[in-house]
């Protein structure tokens, strides 16, 4: 007589409510999973969530409408209100300027909060990981805030050999230009803090001041790696400033103005009702100028593949090495502020600012288009960072002086030819 012995397992302790066991037949295995990702329910759900987020953001932008034209009436309303109470006008103007400055100051802060999380998620998914998943419940949405609090509570270390005052001032010298530089940037139609006529020159001039802070940081740390990082940074930023500025000159030649919002506004309209009149669509000149500007911007913001000033594997972290806590956070903030600035500039110079890419998409407000273009360009920055290895120092200089600079100079000449051609065409000298 055969008796069957049931194995007496104790009850599984594994939490079935919010956990799951992956059985061998449907276990995670990339070669099998990547053949048909749409068969995975989690993948379909993720795609649906992404589409919902995008359309929700578009709907919110549509409901909000244009912000720029509504600001001036708000100010005149406040002015009249103040006059009726006998408050002097200069007080109102001062308060208005302070409010505008506070809003402008929030731009790099909010940008850093979002961009750090976005970078971590993008980098993780490019490496088939997930990135932060716990803080903030939904895909680590509050991870950056937790990191910020951590940095805020961290001990502020000043090395023994450091020059104390310069060490303290360096992050300030880096962050102040990074905030000031946003003043003439148009964030949409009529949505600009200071509508400078020399906006382009102002942006490049003020943005260049941050190099000083980086050299200060490298020098004051009293550390050979920091000093090397600072010097490399100086060499790199000064060299790449040239092709970066030269690549914008064709745009300025075509637009005939240095005012950033005017340059963005000039690109309204469509060729043949389909192709937008963006500067990137000007034959050859526009594309070359954009590529050179993009590469030089990546180099200007010290990001991989041009991150030799803060190369972790060779210089520890370059000029960042001796900084901790909020001082480090300021460097970090300024780096992401410059990334945002480069993307905003590219959107304004080459992608028509707030102009929609197709005529029927004009129902979305201009700031939404500006933001969308900026985010797509920012994605390019992250994309480059997680694709390319770092340049060697000499190759970096070769690339700049032997490729980018001649190409951008040639591009200026080509822009002259293009303008002559367009003038002839407009005057009816070509093809009747």
């Amino acid at each position, binding site marked *: *007589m055969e008796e069957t012995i049931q194995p007496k397992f104790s009850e599984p302790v594994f939490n079935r409510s919010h956990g799951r066991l992956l059985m061998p037949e449907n276990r995670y295995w990339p070669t099998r999973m990547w053949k048909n990702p749409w068969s995975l329910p989690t993948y379909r759900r993720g795609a649906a969530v992404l589409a919902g987020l995008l359309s929700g953001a578009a709907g919110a932008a549509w409901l909000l409408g244009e912000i720029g034209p509504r600001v001036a009436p708000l100010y005149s309303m406040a002015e009249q209100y103040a006059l009726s109470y006998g408050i002097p006008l200069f007080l109102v103007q001062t308060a208005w300027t302070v409010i505008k400055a506070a809003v402008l100051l929030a731009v790099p802060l909010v940008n850093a909060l979002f961009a750090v999380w976005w970078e971590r998620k993008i980098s993780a998914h490019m490496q088939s990981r997930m990135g932060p998943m716990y803080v903030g419940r939904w895909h680590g949405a509050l991870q950056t805030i937790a990191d910020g609090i951590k940095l805020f509570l961290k001990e502020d270390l000043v090395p023994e050999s450091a020059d104390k005052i310069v060490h303290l001032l360096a992050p300030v010298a880096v962050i102040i230009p990074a905030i000031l530089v946003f003043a003439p940037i148009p964030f949409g139609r009529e949505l600009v803090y200071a509508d400078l006529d020399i906006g382009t020159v102002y942006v490049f001039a003020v943005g260049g001041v941050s190099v000083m802070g980086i050299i200060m940081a490298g020098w004051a740390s009293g550390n050979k790696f920091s000093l090397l990082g600072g010097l490399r940074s100086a060499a790199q930023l000064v060299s790449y400033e040239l092709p970066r500025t030269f690549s914008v000159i064709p745009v300025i030649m075509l637009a005939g103005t240095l005012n950033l919002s005017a340059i963005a506004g000039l690109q309204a309209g469509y060729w043949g009702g389909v192709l937008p009149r963006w500067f990137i669509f000007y034959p050859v000149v526009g594309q070359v100028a954009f590529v050179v500007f993009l590469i030089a911007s990546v180099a200007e913001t010290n990001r991989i593949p041009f991150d030799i000033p803060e190369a972790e594997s060779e210089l520890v972290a370059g000029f960042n090495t001796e900084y901790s806590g909020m001082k480090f956070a300021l460097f970090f903030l300024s780096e992401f502020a410059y990334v945002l600035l480069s993307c905003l500039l590219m959107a304004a110079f080459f992608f028509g600012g707030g102009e929609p890419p197709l005529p029927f998409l004009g129902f979305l407000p201009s700031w939404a288009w500006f933001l969308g273009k900026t985010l797509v360009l920012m994605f390019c920055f992250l*994309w480059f960072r997680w694709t390319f290895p770092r340049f060697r120092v000499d190759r970096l200089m070769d690339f700049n002086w032997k490729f980018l600079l001649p190409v951008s100079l040639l591009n200026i000449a080509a822009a002259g030819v293009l303008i002559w051609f367009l003038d002839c065409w407009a005057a009816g000298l070509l093809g009747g």
Partner: protein
Amino acid sequence: MKNYILFVSEAFWNTLKGLWVTLKVLFLPAITVQYPTEKLVPYPRFRGMLAYDAEACIACGMCVRACPSKCIALAKAMPVPQQELCSSSGQPVSPEGKRVPKIEWYTIDYGRCNFCGLCEEACPTKTKALWHSLDFEAVFSTREEMTRRWKRGDDLWGTARRSADGQFSAVADQIHIQDVPVRK
């Protein structure tokens, strides 16, 4: 000049190829297993923690001899009086008609076990009394805990000596992947 243009265009093309690879992977699902909430169940031939059935064991000691690291020890139970034997199956049977284990105690020292599976191979009973389960989540905080002990009536995972009071108790703080109890 021709070489220069060729070099530049080739570099440009290779750059685009690299960008394509990362973009492709970006839109493919991640392969991460979120461990505490998601667990991989190993393949059936996985050699995990040893499970021991005190009622199937005939206390022959084959596993003790097979073990290369000598981590298994056992003691036979005292012989059962003749009048309680049931002649039908040759197994000792208790007055209630159930089988009585032939084992007094059985220990496995996981500090020495190398999970080779020879003890399971050597076990002569028809349903193995000792076998590798799929459990890979054993946790030991002291050396004493690494010795698992089984007596009559213990479950498959045995008991371990608590370092706090020196008493043997069931292994409670261990999470088991035990939905797939492979038993040959």
